Structure formats: C-alpha cells, structure tokens
C-alpha cells in the first residue's frame, strides 16, 4: 500500500488505489491521502442521456434531480441540509454516458455520505411523490430556459449533435432534452428508470482522501452490501455505431438573437475508449488551446478576423465522439469567410510540427495534474477509469499516454477525421 499521491523523478504520478467488488457487484475504489482532513465520495452510475428512449429526452437528468428529493430514511431537503451542516459540498452531473454524484466532506463525516448515498441507491422509491416530480420538472425547465433558451448561441449543441449523429443514434439529442419530453415524464418512468439503471452492478463507488482503506471498505460494505444486485442493463436504444465519418459537409445557418456572427465546425472522431483518442485530444489542443495555438495565433492575432476561438473534444464512448471548434467574428463579419479561415487551419494541421505537438502535450499534461489536486476530481477520475476501462491504474498511466502522442499521430488525425467528408458547419448570424 502506497501512501499519499506523489510524483516520481520525471513528474510521473503515483496515485495509490485499491479496488474491491462487493457481493452485489458494486465496485469500490479506495485512494487514501491523509494530506488534508477531507474526504471525497464519488458514485458513478453507468447511465446517461444515451439510455433515454424516444419521447423521454432529458429524463436521465430529471431523474438525477429526483435523487436529491429524499429516500426512505431521508426526508426531502434533509440530504442537502445534513451535508451542508457537516461543512460539505455536494452535487451531481448528468452526461451522455454516465451520471455522477459526489460529496466532499471533513473526513470524520465519511459515514454520513455513505448513509445518504446508500439510502438513495437502495430505497429511493418509497420517497417519490407526484409533488416532488412536478417541482423538479419546473426546476429543470428553468435550468433549460436559463442555460439554453435565454443565452445567445444557447442551442449550438442541440444543433451540432443533430448534424453529427444520425437520428437513431443515442447522441442525436442533448442531455437537457426537450420541454415536451420533460412534460411527458411520469412517476412510473422514475420508478422504472431507477429499477433498471440504479443498481450496484451498474455503479462504481470511490472514496478518496483522508480515509484509511480498511475502514473505508468496511464502511462501504456495511452501508451498500445489502442492496440487491439488480438485473443486467438493457441494450442502448437505437443504433450505437454511426460509422467513423459523417459522410460529407452538412450545414445549418441560423439567424438569431446574437450580437456577433459565430461559426462552429464539428467532426466525428474516435471515442474515449479508442487508443487513438489521446492523439485527437492533442490535435484539438494544437488547434485551439492557448494563445500560441493555430486558431488563436492566426485568426485572432495575425489576421484579426476573429474575436475569440475555441476547440474541445468530448470524451464520449458510444460508436463515435465529437470534436468542436469555433470562431466568433467581428460585427458584420461574413460567416463564409470565418468558415474558410477555420477550415484552412484544420487542413494545416496535416503539417503540424513536432514543436506544436510538444506545446499541446505540455498543456494537456499540466491540465491533467491540476485535476488531481482535488480529492473530488481524483475520486471522479478513478470512478471513470474503473467503470470504462476496468482499470483504476489507468489514472497513473494517463500522462504517459498523452506524452506518447507524436506529430505523426496528430497529422493522421487531420487526414482521417477532419476532412470535408466529416464536417458539420453551424453558422450564427445576428438577426436584423
């Protein structure tokens, strides 16, 4: 057993971990670190918007809200009250492929988190009411209004996903879903969803920080051990493999309430599970991370055709993932010219230099080490690598894999996945 996380001579990482599986299939990962009297608890469930059936988009996220509305032994509001009174912070997020729930607490409150999490994993149903469902439906609809409907460019992901993924693919719709589908959700849906996906064998529990592994494991087994295992998870709806490329350049042009024109381009790329994903991530960073990146240097600084630029890659796992780049133009800019400028940089990636790749690797590297500073992030990453790769130690090899990306790998990304046969172009123009 190693002690706290520590760095090797070349700044490689050694985050300690232990992995156990309870009789009901719940995977438990422990990562001790006595540096601060803080413990992070993370529950990662293998369910997200990709599991939603047609007519119920947005449901996985609405369900996540219902997990905070009390369980058999925890009245509504008590969950938040108890954690806050303990000086903890908590939240949950819903994503395409998973839903995670997490608390960070002073370490002597570990069992409080385990009690709350196990009560809702095992005994959510007795607490469900029409009243809380209706209240949280209103909250979620307000979340959609606030973050999407009342924001300039707020519907960009809905539009891009619909272009990048075919209509029968689980990523065709967004995590937030549609208002009509949120309205259609019933209490029976909540009960079914819970019984199907919120079972120990579809989850990873990670406890990171100031908790001795022996005691943490004993406590995890005590609180979670008696929850029934549940049935195997049903197959995904639709067709999970969309093929490697979009098959052309598809376009969407929107006149909207936006102050400045913006052009976004999305590409289908290999998934997070694919060994080539690191090269895609580094290629994205060569294009758009930092001020020496191709997009910033050229479009913003040298040619001054863009006010800001961005690039990112989603770590999705179902068939294909998505890379997105964008540029916001100055008032009156022509979207076609912005698109041409973006495309030129994307195509230029086919001749990316070793120095450019080294810069992108260094940035990606530092970003990864920074994530390990917080127990909550460390716990989340351990849950993720355990769930997706059956391998918590992948966390300790991740930097090696990023550093192994070469110029040739990045150039191959440009050739294979960023060509005109694999682009979705979305242009926003200010409405007159």
């Amino acid at each position: 057993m190693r002690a706290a996380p520590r760095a090797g001579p070349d700044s490689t990482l050694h985050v300690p971990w232990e992995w156990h599986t309870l009789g009901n299939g719940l995977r438990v990962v422990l990562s001790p670190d006595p540096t601060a009297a803080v413990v992070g608890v993370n529950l990662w469930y293998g369910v997200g918007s990709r599991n939603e059936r047609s007519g119920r988009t947005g449901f996985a996220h609405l369900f996540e809200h219902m997990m905070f509305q009390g369980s058999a032994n925890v009245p509504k509001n008590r969950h938040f009250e108890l954690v806050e009174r303990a000086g903890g912070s908590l939240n949950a997020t819903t994503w395409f492929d998973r839903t995670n729930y997490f608390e960070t607490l002073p370490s002597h409150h570990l069992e409080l988190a385990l009690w709350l999490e196990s009560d809702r994993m095992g005994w959510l149903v007795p607490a469900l009411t029409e009243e809380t469902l209706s209240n949280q439906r209103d909250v979620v609809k307000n979340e959609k209004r606030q973050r999407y409907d009342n924001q300039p460019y707020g519907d960009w992901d809905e539009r891009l996903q619909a272009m990048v993924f075919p209509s029968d693919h689980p990523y065709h719709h967004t995590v937030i879903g549609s208002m009509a589908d949120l309205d259609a959700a019933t209490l029976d849906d909540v009960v079914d969803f819970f019984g199907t996906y919120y079972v120990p064998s579809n989850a990873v529990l990670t406890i990171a920080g100031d908790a001795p592994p022996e005691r943490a494991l004993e406590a995890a087994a005590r609180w979670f051990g008696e929850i029934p295992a549940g049935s195997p998870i049903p197959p995904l709806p639709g067709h999970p493999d969309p093929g490697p490329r979009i098959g052309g350049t598809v376009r969407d042009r929107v006149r909207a309430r936006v102050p400045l024109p913006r052009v976004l381009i999305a590409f289908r790329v290999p998934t997070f599970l694919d060994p080539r994903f690191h090269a895609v991530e580094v290629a994205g960073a060569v294009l758009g991370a930092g001020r020496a990146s191709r997009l910033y240097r050229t479009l913003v600084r040298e040619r001054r055709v863009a006010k800001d630029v961005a690039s990112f890659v989603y770590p999705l796992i179902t068939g294909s993932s998505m890379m997105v780049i964008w540029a916001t133009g100055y008032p009156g800019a022509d979207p076609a010219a912005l698109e041409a400028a973006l495309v030129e940089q994307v195509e230029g990636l086919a001749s990316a230099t070793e120095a450019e790749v080294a810069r992108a690797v260094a940035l990606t590297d530092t970003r990864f080490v920074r994530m390990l500073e917080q127990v909550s992030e460390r716990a989340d990453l351990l849950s993720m690598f355990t769930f997706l790769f059956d391998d918590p130690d992948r966390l300790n090899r991740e930097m090696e894999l990023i550093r192994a990306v070469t110029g040739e790998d990045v150039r191959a990304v440009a050739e294979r996945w960023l060509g005109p046969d694999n682009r979705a172009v979305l242009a926003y123009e200010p409405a007159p």
Partner: protein
Amino acid sequence: MPQRKAPRATSRARTAVREERPLDRTRAPVLGAPVPLALPELSRFTLSCGVQVALVERHDLPLVAAEVLVPGGASAVPAPSAGLASLTADMLDEGAGGRSAVELARLLEGLGATLDSAAGYDDGHLTLLALRPRFAEALTLLVDLLRRPDFDEGELDRVRRERMDLALQLVDEPRAVANDALSRLLYGPDHPWGPPLLGTRATLARLGSAEVAEHHRQRYHAGNVTILVAGDVTEGELRDLLEACLARWERRATPPCTVPAAPQPDCPRLCLVDRAGAAQSEIRVGCVAAARSSPDYFPIVVLNTVLGGAFTSRLNTRLREEKGLTYGARSGFHARCAPGPFVARAAVHTPVTDQAVGVFLEELERLIEEPVPDEELERAKHYAALRLPQRFETVGDLVARLAELSLYHLPDDYWAGYVRRLMAVDAARVREAARRYLDPRRMTVVVVGDRAAVERPLRGLGMALEVMPGAAP
C-alpha cells in the same frame, strides 16, 4: 468495452459485513470526532528590492502556483477611464522583455505553464501555475511581463477592439446586463465601481498606450507589489530565483487609492431593462453594504449563509425547492476595500417575475423582523466554518488565501481564528447585521426581462418603476 480483469480482494469486504452490528438506517450515523484543521505553515521573507514574499511549501504533487499581487485595480482608476486596470493587466502578455506576444505564448505553453493576468476591483494580479521542473523558467517569463511589457500601440488597438466588441456581445447576455445595471444604479456613473470592470465602449475608446503605460508605472513596481507562492518549491530555491530576476527592481511612491463614498438611496428603486421575448427574467436585488475590514464581517457571513449562500438557504428553498420558479437563487456580500455591494439573484420564468421579486423582499424583511431559529443558525455557522479545509485544497487555493491576507491587511493567524470567530456569532448579531445591510427600503431591484409581459405585474408591487430600453453598450 475492454475485457474485465479480475478485481482483487473481494472476500475481505464480505468478512467485514459479518463483523458489524445491525445497521440503523433510520437516522444519520453517529460521527467520530472532527480532525482539527491543520493549517499549512507560512513563511515570509523580503527581497533586497523590498518586495515581500509569502510562501507555503507543499510537496505532494509536482506543482507550484505563484501570484504577483498589485493592489489598486479598478478602485485606483476614475470612472471616465473605466476599464484601464483590466486593459493594463491584459496587455502585459502582448509582448515583453524583447519577445513578441506569440513568442511569449509559445515559450510559456511549451513549458505547460498557465499564466494569467487580470484586474479586479481592488487589485491587478499575475498568476502562474507550472509543474515543478519548469517553474523557474516560467517565473522568469512572468517577471518579464511584470517589469518589461511593450504596450505596443498596434497590439493595444487589437486588444481594445476585442474588448469593445466584448462589451457589445454582453448586451445580449442577460446576466451581464443585470449585473452591470445594478452596479451602475448602486454606485452611480461617477464612482470607480459604477461602470463594469471591462469598461464601456465609450471609456475604452479613450484609452491608449500612454494611459496604460502610466497606470503600469504607478502600480506595477517594487513599492506596491507582494509575491505569494505555494507548492513544490523550497524557501531557499524561491529566494534565489526571485533575487536573480528582481534584485534591482525600482520602488516608487504609489498614489493613494481612495474610493469615494457611494450614494445612499432614501427609497427603494425598481428598474426594468427590456429584453423582448425573453424566456426568463434575470432578477437582482442589492444595496451598498460592507467593506472587507468591517467589524460585521463574520455576522455577515452567517447572515448570508442563512439567506442565500448555500443550497438550503432561504431564497433557494423558497424559490426553487418549494415553488419551482427558478433553477437557483443565491446571494452574496462582495466585501472590498470600501463598502461593496450585497447582491441577491435568480433567473425566473417570465410569468412569475413579480411573485419572485416579492419573495426576495419578504425574505429580507423576515431576517429583520424575526431572529433566525437556533437549528438554522447552527447549520449556517457549521456550513461556513467547516468548509474551511476545502478552501486550502489546491496550490491555487493556498495562493488565493495568502493574497486575501495581504490585500486586506489581515493578520497571519487570521485563518487559525476564523472558525472560532464564526462560531461566536449569535442570532442577535445576525439580526443586527440584517437591519444594517438588508433594509428593503434601501434596496435597488433590477429586472432584465420581457417588458410586455412583466411591466404591469411589477407595477402591482407598489414601487416606483423606471423602465430602461436596454443597456447601452
């Protein structure tokens, strides 16, 4: 999915279950004793140029964070030059020490380092984060930015244009429109905190490289800055590094920075900014409240936690968890070098705008009228006090805590006494603070929303209503 490897040690877990007494799930588990907060050790030294340095060593991860704190910020700039502090900070990496902006970015990013410079209301700052083996080199570049920026007129033109267009862009961001309108109303157009930190299109148009260079000359020198470092570096290493690049750095007199008193309204105000067809109304309720040095600081922290500082606070409980009118409601006291604003906020569904404003005002009134019940008060105090360890988690957190001590002249044992002082706050002090800072008769309410839908209901609240056509960029 890859093939599953056999997980280890499944048997230990089951043994553990058998040894335990039956579980009582009906109540929260009994807790062990809290682990006392071990605050990291702080060392201080002064460089030969007179600059003070504070360091917290931490060697668990190969990371170092550093901040150069430059007191002043927007507080040091008169309103007609609004945006100057922020523009100056932004210009530091646009060429310095004989290197172009692109060369600087290439070098820094090649080191995997992140270096940001920005200005707030009370300070400008450069923050650096680097892996240990590359920290020394990155720090040298930081010092170039700090001491030898070019402020090239051509680069300035571009940055100013980006900022003017950002100001234009923000006119369509309802949150920014609401925040800016509230600041303008609370402090007035002539106060340094009236306009946004970014400045306005009008003030930005007046700022050239002469103004930027002069602001830099007045603030960015050895007589004004403090350096804060945390992470995987020793005191000896750091001292040598800093002496090597700051040895003969010039000290100048720093012009005093006195923030004028804000106007105090004698009646409540309600201001509606039209955003036709908006799906939601952005609501702000605020007043000019307290400075960071206020003796009411700890009662204010508790008061705000009860009202809107946490998820279970009154505003969020009523507006979200009981009524479903919003995704979330929060409040905060922005304590600065002079009395900063108290701001409560939520984005609510358009048809319930007036109802939500009514709830905000009721909750302020209730804190003045009724003492906070014991259970609720204890929860708020524990929440605020026990989260302290989380504020010391990363090297970036540590540097931020050091900067807070330095900027607001707090003693080195401030964090050690923090929990005790918070826990000493009682219901009477909270109510007194509420009377002093949350009087609904002194509140300014801003609503950014669909005038056609919300004006008539808002008039029903019985406050004088001022309608603004939309924020001027």
